[in-house]
């Protein structure tokens, strides 16, 4: 039957009793649309809807009708989701369940194998399946069949076979004519059903699509990107040239991967300004493929909420929920929640439980009460309702209750896309509930995984209006007609499709049965027919391919290689200026001088002595960190971070010296006494930290940390014990104020000792390597100790400055003093091993410090905020302000940063 005849018959309405079946949904829709245009062109305002549907749906419909016609309860024909779950159960019941890396894909392939075997009549004979893959499949298939039998369900893979004998039933309505449209392949199973139908007086006919003479062209483009771009420009050129609404098709073999690239290219070419328009315009194209449901943020967030109700969830999931727009109060508390999240990040572990999430939220004196309240209720609900095994329907209900508790889908009104997504989500939950038909009770974990997987596999696309440009995959292009068609991606490695036999049925059997995907020769034949189909389905057909992919050269598919290559330009394809280029062409840049911030006001400056360190390292950094107080977001990490460990060390040594006080006392203590003391001090140090990092420190890790502190302090006390001049610790962690160059800051001096004879030593604990060279030059790396020496308590009497390098191995003092042999490891200036020795004497060093510290202070006070890192490579490496200071714009700062082998600094 010709297509025109078909439409004529369809136009007769129900009287004709004509049903059209297609191999896929896309073609059914396209035919329906064609028919509608046909009817509309006849001037009708209403007509009987044509009965056009994919083969599978038709079989399902027949099943339902048969069930009703007989009045007997026919077994339940499993829905795709149920079928999937039944296979999953079948595999789970085998010994492989635990060993397999991923069950999901195995399920998909098994189901495919099962369908193939039935569709192509391949006997699954244990004797003919010799390898383990095949044997495993047989075992699973056995389980699957047993489950069907026991539960009295019908197998979708055999629905056509089961239906065939029922077709004779008088009550079952059958079409007078069944038209088959666009079938490149008819499987033996399908043929069986059709033959039976023919026996029952239904006329089965093929729909022939009139082939048209086409203007054919092959276009070779540099790479996939230019290919897509050319197709987009072509589409716009043709659309603008046409009168009325042409049908323009673009066929993309790897649509799933390149979908967004194509959408973007089309959008950018068709409406360059669409991204900056106040209201998003309707664009004249539609992509036939939807996104996975779980890729829609609304659904993803719902799943994250459910995740969070499990035993543990990654912090990032919790964080996402905390900032989700789909939770009640998301607008009202938007900023508060972001701040809460930033705060939690500083103390959280990379994984957390709902309870601890809520606890931490409560503890941080939250400004987001609504959120905390809802999640507290969720935590309670979890305890009562999200435990123990239950049926799928029970879980579906519990999940939707959990979502209700957190106020999903939030207070922002949903737009139409979100509305449809939400409806689809509800449908998914309902579908999930029906899994109770095929699987027994399950625990939370399994239920959640299944729901997640179903959401990932549910491809969903919000409805789109009828538009002239249709983008589709290869399968959906079969049998369609266009005014203009562009098929892209036809390289020799992609087309003909490489053979991909199903791994669960012996390849030879598949080949013998005639399954194209299992046999290169059959695949070539099929793809040649498809190519021929393209070449005849539109007056203009363009077949294109890229010549390069990354670094590899590509050749055209042999099926199109005989066409002479043409350029898009030769085909009249126009160029359109992309938005960003137009914008760049209009660019107008000015450069102004802005290195000086307003003067610093009176009073205390923020940032402590670190301010001077920053100002010396880079004035802009001091401005950003100490005046703007700009901080970035942190990411939770395993264990304590170096900062916390440093704090613990300080607290530990403070506790020790607060009790021991003098070297003499230390010397008098027995090892046993020292051990007791250290144990107590470690407890004390940890107690403070535990308030902030309870989760981290509560268990064995905290115990190890205690051990570490004791160990460190023990080795350190050895160093102290050996000091030549007896000393008394005057103060530990002493708060003080220091001022240089008019800038006053708060400081906290780790320790101040008085040596016998009256000298004062200032000491800074370091857990990493340290060097006296850090006090040298006009931009000292570590100006803190000089600041205390010159401006702290007892400033006049300080004559020893020393780093105390406290480490498991290599603990020592490093410093300088005004006389020799005061502290082990501390020398006079002229004996120093760094460039500090060039100052020659203590007095000259101190004078130098005074000058430089004053200068640094004055620069800060004056608002000096130049981007002037001391050493681009070193200083900027540990600085988080580079997006703000824009150093990359000023000097080639990053070229070395991507180095695979790296290189030593300094």
């Amino acid at each position, binding site marked *: 039957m010709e297509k025109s005849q078909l439409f004529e018959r369809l136009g007769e309405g129900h009287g004709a009793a004509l049903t059209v079946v297609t191999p896929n949904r896309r073609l059914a829709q396209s035919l329906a649309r064609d028919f509608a245009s046909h009817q509309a062109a006849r001037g009708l*305002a209403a007509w009987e809807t044509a009965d056009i549907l994919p083969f599978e749906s038709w079989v399902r419909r027949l099943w339902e009708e048969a069930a*009703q016609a*007989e009045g007997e*309860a026919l077994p*339940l024909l499993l*829905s795709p989701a149920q079928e999937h779950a039944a296979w999953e159960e079948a595999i789970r019941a085998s010994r492989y369940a635990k060993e*397999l890396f*991923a069950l999901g*894909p*195995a399920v998909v392939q098994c189901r495919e194998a099962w369908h193939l075997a039935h569709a192509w009549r391949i006997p699954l004979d244990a004797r003919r399946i010799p390898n*383990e893959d095949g044997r495993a499949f047989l075992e699973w298939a056995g389980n699957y069949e047993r489950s069907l039998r026991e539960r009295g369900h019908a197998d979708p893979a055999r629905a056509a076979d089961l239906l065939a004998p029922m077709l004779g039933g008088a009550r079952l309505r059958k079409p007078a004519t069944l038209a088959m449209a666009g079938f490149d392949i008819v499987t033996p199973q399908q043929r069986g059903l059709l033959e039976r139908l023919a026996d029952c007086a239904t006329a089965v006919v093929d729909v022939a699509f009139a082939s048209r003479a086409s203007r054919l062209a092959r276009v070779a483009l540099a790479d996939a990107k230019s290919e897509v771009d050319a197709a987009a420009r072509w589409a716009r050129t043709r659309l603008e040239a046409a009168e009325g*609404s042409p049908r323009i098709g673009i066929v993309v073999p790897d649509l799933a991967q390149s979908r967004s690239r194509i959408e973007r290219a089309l959008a950018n070419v068709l*409406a360059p*300004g669409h*991204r*900056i328009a106040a209201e998003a315009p309707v664009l004249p194209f539609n992509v036939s493929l939807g996104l996975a449901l779980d*890729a829609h*943020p609304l659904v*993803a967030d719902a799943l994250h909420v459910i995740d969070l109700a499990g035993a543990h969830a990654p912090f990032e999931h919790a964080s*996402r929920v905390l900032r989700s727009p789909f939770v009640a109060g998301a607008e009202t508390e938007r*900023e508060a929640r972001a*701040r809460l999240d*930033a705060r939690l990040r500083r103390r959280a572990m990379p994984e957390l439980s709902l309870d601890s999430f809520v606890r931490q939220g409560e503890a941080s004196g939250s400004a987001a009460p609504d959120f905390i309240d809802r999640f507290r209720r969720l935590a309670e609900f979890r305890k009562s309702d999200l435990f123990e095994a239950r049926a799928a*329907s029970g879980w579906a209900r519990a999940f*939707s209750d959990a979502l209700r508790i957190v106020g999903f889908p939030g207070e922002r009104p949903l737009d139409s896309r979100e*509305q449809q997504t939400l*409806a689809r989500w*509800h449908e998914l939950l309902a579908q999930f509930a*029906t899994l109770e038909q095929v699987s027994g009770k399950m625990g939370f974990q399994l239920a959640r995984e299944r729901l997640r997987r179903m959401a990932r596999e549910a491809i969903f696309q919000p409805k789109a209006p009828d538009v002239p440009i249709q983008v589709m995959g290869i399968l959906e292009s079969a049998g369609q007609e266009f005014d203009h068609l562009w098929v892209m991606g036809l390289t*020799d490695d992609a087309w003909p499709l490489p053979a991909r036999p199903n791994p669960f049925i*012996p390849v030879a059997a598949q080949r013998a049965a005639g399954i194209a995907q299992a046999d*290169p020769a059959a695949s070539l034949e099929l793809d040649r027919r498809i190519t021929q189909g393209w070449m005849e389905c539109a007056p203009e057909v363009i077949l294109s391919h890229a010549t390069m992919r990354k*670094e590899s050269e590509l*050749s055209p598919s*042999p099926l199109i290689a005989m066409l002479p290559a043409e350029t898009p330009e030769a085909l009249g394809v126009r160029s359109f200026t*992309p938005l960003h*280029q137009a*914008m760049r062409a209009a*660019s107008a*840049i000015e450069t102004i001088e802005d*290195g000086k911030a307003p003067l610093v006001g009176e009073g205390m400056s923020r940032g402590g002595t670190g301010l001077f360190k920053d100002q010396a390292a880079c004035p802009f950094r001091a*401005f950003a960190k100490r005046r*703007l107080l700009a901080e970035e977001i942190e990411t939770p*990490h*395993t264990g304590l971070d170096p900062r916390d460990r440093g704090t613990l060390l300080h607290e530990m040594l403070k506790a020790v010296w607060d009790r021991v006080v003098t070297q003499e006392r230390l010397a008098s203590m027995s090892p046993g006494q020292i051990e007791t003391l250290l144990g107590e001090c470690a407890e004390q140090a940890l107690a403070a930290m535990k308030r902030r990092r309870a989760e981290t420190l509560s268990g064995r890790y905290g115990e*190890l940390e205690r*051990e*570490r502190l004791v160990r460190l302090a023990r080795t350190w006390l050895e160093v102290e014990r050996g000091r030549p001049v007896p000393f008394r610790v005057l103060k530990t962690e002493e708060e003080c104020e220091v001022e240089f160059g008019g800038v006053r800051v708060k400081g906290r001096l780790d320790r101040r000792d008085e040596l016998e004879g009256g000298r004062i030593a200032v000491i800074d604990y370091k857990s990493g390597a340290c060097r006296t060279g850090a006090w040298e030059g006009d931009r000292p790396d570590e100006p803190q100790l000089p600041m205390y020496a010159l401006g702290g308590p007892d400033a006049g009497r300080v004559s020893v400055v020393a780093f105390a390098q406290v480490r*498991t191995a*290599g603990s020592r003092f490093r410093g300088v003093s005004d006389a020799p042999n005061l502290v082990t490891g501390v020398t006079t200036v002229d004996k120093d091993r760094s460039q500090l020795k060039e100052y020659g004497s203590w007095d000259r060093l101190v004078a130098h410090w005074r000058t430089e510290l004053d200068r640094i202070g004055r620069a800060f006070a004056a608002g000096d905020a*130049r981007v002037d890192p001391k*050493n681009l*490579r070193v200083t900027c490496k540990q600085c988080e302000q580079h997006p703000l200071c*824009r150093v*990359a*714009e*000023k000097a*080639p700062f*990053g070229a070395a940063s*991507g180095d695979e082998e790296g290189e030593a600094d300094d």
Partner: protein
Amino acid sequence: MTEAFVAPDQAERDRALDVARSFIVQAPAGSGKTALLIQRYLALLSRVERPEEIAAITFTVKAAAEMRNRVLEALRGARQSRRPGSAQDARTWDLARAALERNDVLGWKLEESADRLKVQTIDALCASLTRQMPVLSRFGGQPEVIEDATALFAEAAHNLLAMIEEEGEEAQSVARLLRHLDNDAATAAKLVAEMLARRDQWLRTLDRKTDRQSLERALDEVRRVAVEEMLALWPEGEKCPKLGTDDWITQAQEWTTQKGEWRKVGSIAPAAIRAVEAMLEAMCAVKSLPPGRYSDVQWDALEAMLRLAPLAIAQLQLVFAKHGKADFTEFALRALRALEGEEGATDLLLVLDYRIRHILVDEFQDTSFTQFKLLELLTSGWEPGDGRTLFVVGDPMQSIYRFREAEVGLFLRAWKEGVGSVALEPVTLSANFRSHAGIVDWVNHAFARVMPVSADARTGAVKYAASHAVHPREERATHMHPFYDSDSAGQGRTVAEVAREARGSVAILVRNRSHLLEVLPRLREAGIAYRAVEIESLRHRPAVSDLLALTRALSHLADEVAWLAVLRAPWCGLTLADLLAVAPGEAPITVWEGVRDEARLAKMSADGRTRLERTRALLARALAARGRLGLRDVVEGVWLGLGGPACVEGDIDLEDAETYLDHLEAMEESGSLPDLEAFVESVEKLFALPDLESPDCVQVMTIHKAKGLEFDTVIVPGLAGETAKDDASLFLWMETTEGALLLAPIKPAGVEKEPIYDMIRRLDKTKAGHEVGRLLYVASTRARKALHLLGDAARDWKTGAVKEPGRTSLLHKLWPAVAHHFEPGDPRRNTRAVGRSVPVAAQGSLRRLDFDRFRFEAPAAVAWNAPREREEAEPIEFSWVGDTSRRVGSVVHRWLQRIAEEEMRGWNRARVEKHRGAIRASLTAAGLIEAELDSAAARVVAALTGALEDPRGKWLLGPHPNARNEYRLTTRVDGVRRDIVIDRLWEDLAETWIVDYKTSSHEGAELDKFLAAEEVRYRPQLERYAAALGKAGARRGLYFPLLKGWREWGSD
């Protein structure tokens, strides 16, 4: 090349084409090995039953494509053109001709299905094997390949460490590990993650004996062998003390200095001993031997690691499974597992439908242990003369992929022992078709010194094999440009000069990207166009850096640095003073709140305020729509709206921006970034796309990238660059001479010496040292006509003498051959290098859009007739009750349709009851859950019996003329198409009836009110039906079977 030309090694080449035998071919640079591979492939084609029986394995995807294309070309050539004149080409043509005949006879259609030529990378081969063996590989289904699995390794490492808080022995092991590492969890996690990344190397060691006794036995052996090797050198006649190993160590320590030289004062070794050439080295080896036992601390740590290793692997598997992704190593390991099979080796015939009978491997010198094992399995059971062959080609002198687990020792081993059961005949090629004689001669001369004198599989030492140039000598070909004292600017200038002067293709090759820091700016200054392949990370390109800030800001409202950066970026360009005005400072608010705070805004400059308001409007829009678009779309939209493209410096930045945005899209999951920190790190590894359109400009790339390429002129700057110290590994391992396994745990934090660890580490360093020489070889042999080497030597400050270059540098290797180019300088010259800084002029400058001059209008959109938007359905309320009613409704409709179709004949309460089972089945099929089934079925039955027993129902369902049920129509109103379904319709002469069934239920009184409300609700629907039918005068009815209710109107 003329017809008469015969390559100097032609006999070897011919031999290698014997398709009955297996070979290992050493093919130095430029020896035309690809041509040889093609020829062999063609030769094999004419012998096999199916083309798939030949598996060719290449190192890169690019090489696979190239080889396949060349085979196809040869086939096409043989089909279409005449036999060429030159001997080589004719040979290929003949072979291709024979292959074609085979193709035609057996109907392969190779020219049309290129996929049948199985030329692929080892990764692709593994993927195809595991795909066909989902159960044997235990994959179940193919996961997605992830090239950079760093984040997953980190996740697995974290999970492993988190076990510390669990019960059981595992926790103890974790605790022991942490204690060993000073309880530094971050370092521990990093080490475990790195260990997982390299599991390909050590996994197989876990199968071996790792108890303390066996390991210490291995240790003993190592010590004994070292002493024996030293004693073997002992000069005859010299008295040899009888000492135990430990005493020998002491003796060696006495005789040699820290620096590894003979001691000249104090305890001096006898002159005769010092005179033996290799004695010093052997003595030093003895000196640094570890003690014969593990210390308890070491053993404790090692044991913990050995226990944790399998657990870490298990965690990794879980993480892979959770993400549905796996790295190439996992594929390879699974492929191995599948091939090994459960009950003996797997028969591939059953899996693939063909047997692999011939294997060709290119770049065999860069094979890893796993790949080697894979080859062994694929060839297991092969016997000489059974028609199956293995053909491996490579150049051990070009093995430079240690960091990707390449193990050059495997080539050396295969050379001697073959692969598995297959013995390989060695073939050595020596003709060089690439470079001019000047270069070949220099390379022969220099690398005989650079490379070790003898091969050693254990240390990866490869001996140099000389080449013979086919091309004659031209002008001076090799140039060493000496520089002194970190003169990178000088090097940059010279590179630019050479590049400008050079004719033909030019490449600048470096070992490290950082060696280009000074070079690229000079090229730009000199106006030389270049194309850098994976050289410049995009992370700090201003355009990308700004986009990254925007991404961060839009991802997190509390990211202050990012938010302020957005305000400072050229599109907004706030001054420092204005920033200070709006920044939150000490207030507990976000920047976003700050910029909307009137009190703060009042403190801003007028210009700043205008700028801010423009930016704020766009950001507000984006924030209001969060969670609606993909993150990429949001970021790009805001960027475009702000005028981002107008802010970039060059066109290239626009491309970079796109590369970044594409990357963002690839990394985001459902509209946000799952891990911001990991994302920022990944941007670090993002490079500008190579420009495919301009192949003629100067190419800049790493030596690794240049492998397999050739250029007329090659410039190698930065020869003196050193590599950073290797990071520590959790544990190290080595095989002893006798094949025993030796393991050493990492040093505890802060400990400097750990003899066993250090000893294995030295072996590693030796291997690395050998590879440096090979890297240099690869760089040098890329050149066809001219080779320029640039290196920098330090000179002693006091004496001006040239110092030897650093040990890990390329120049150090080359030193014996080029030292004479370097001259001493003036003594006492100040040579202190200074840190790099920002130019003074740029320190205080702010670059930004000038809105007085920036005017912009978007290019026009396509002109077309957009359809009118359809009005939307009312919001959906989800509840279980609603859902059940919907399903009940649909089932009731279906049964009413049937009853009506049968004009109610034989229908009564009893018959409905009889169908209760079928009704239940319908409900289940419609998706109703079990718990609701009984009540729902009851409602359906109630509805049906209600209708059957209600006079109104009887009238409705009974016979009518021209009746239709579930009548489907399509309407078209104002261009909008709509499908409708009319439940029941009939027409007789007098009137037309349009009836819709509603299964609403209602409890309580005031039924009439309820029905009236329902009528109001559904009236428009029925009006539409009437309109569609063109029957404005039709009577309309709503029937409520559950309520036996009825409303009608119309016609009057």
